[in-house]
């Protein structure tokens, strides 16, 4: 197995889990680099800002054509990555784009909204209400990306081999479960 896609919610600790899995397996972890590379390839670098700005603070509004070119480039870059080195690809609809990729493992990391808001509030030193707004805005942004550009629902469990709820697992425990799934040590 050479590729793991990791879909995650804001405040779910999904990025940390992806990094831990990458560290343990020696896989490259691809997150924002994918966004930047795809946007550059599409000739529309402002789309990268729009994608990163999931709370809508910057007000970047790329054209529909630029967004379409970006999504086509995301698909291209992701398939190149999956066909090359061992990688953990975080976000950008990897579970949809690489759904039928041979040997790929697709993981989703979730947690209850209230817990995620608490984590976001603590991490950024902001109030709980503001953190809840960030969580809601992020959820909307990520759902919309998949719905609009990949015609898929992010919550559709058919796209994932594993769905991990970090209300019950620490980063280390979740990483161990993923590593175990990659190494085939889960008993049949």
């Amino acid at each position, binding site marked *: 197995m050479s590729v793991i896609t990791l879909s995650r919610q804001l405040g779910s600790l999904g990025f940390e889990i992806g990094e831990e899995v990458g560290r343990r397996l020696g896989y490259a972890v691809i997150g924002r680099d994918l966004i930047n590379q795809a946007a550059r390839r599409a000739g529309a670098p402002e789309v990268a800002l729009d994608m990163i700005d999931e709370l809508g603070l910057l*007000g970047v509004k790329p054209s529909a054509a630029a967004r379409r070119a970006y999504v086509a480039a995301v698909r291209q870059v992701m398939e190149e990555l999956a066909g090359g080195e061992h990688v953990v690809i975080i976000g950008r609809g990897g579970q949809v784009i690489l759904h039928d990729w041979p040997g790929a493992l697709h993981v989703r990391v979730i947690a209850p909204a209230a817990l995620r808001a608490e984590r976001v509030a603590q991490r950024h030193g902001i109030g709980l209400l503001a953190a809840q707004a960030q969580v809601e805005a992020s959820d909307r942004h990520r759902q919309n990306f998949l719905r609009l550009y990949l015609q898929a629902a992010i919550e559709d469990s058919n796209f994932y081999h594993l769905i991990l709820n970090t209300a019950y697992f620490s980063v280390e425990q979740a990483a161990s479960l993923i590593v175990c799934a990659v190494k085939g040590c889960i008993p049949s």
Partner: protein
Amino acid sequence: MHPAEVVFARILDFYGIAWQYEPRTFPLEWDEQKRVTLAFTPDFYLPDQDLYIELTTLRPRLSTLKNRKMRRMAELYPDVHIKLLKRREMRDLMIKFGLYDEAEKLLGTEAQMMEEEVEDVARG
């Protein structure tokens, strides 16, 4: 740095986006002695995105000059990507997302703009 630019930089930091402030000036027009008579210095450069950012004010008089510069930029430097951003509604969004300090700075900017406009009127 202008207060609105300070706010913008804080948002970039919030998202972990690398940035440089006014790293390059682009000559746009020259006189007969080849001296630069018009130039453009975008506010920010984002190296990871290879993108320049220019924050715009809402005042039409300034927008006209800026639009002229943008047209010349497109003619002379077609491979350079520049994004114009308006700061309208930024303050409300920042409050919603808990960036109170940044929003306060922007409020200060708006107050400063009003003062500038009063001065403009006084000057005729």
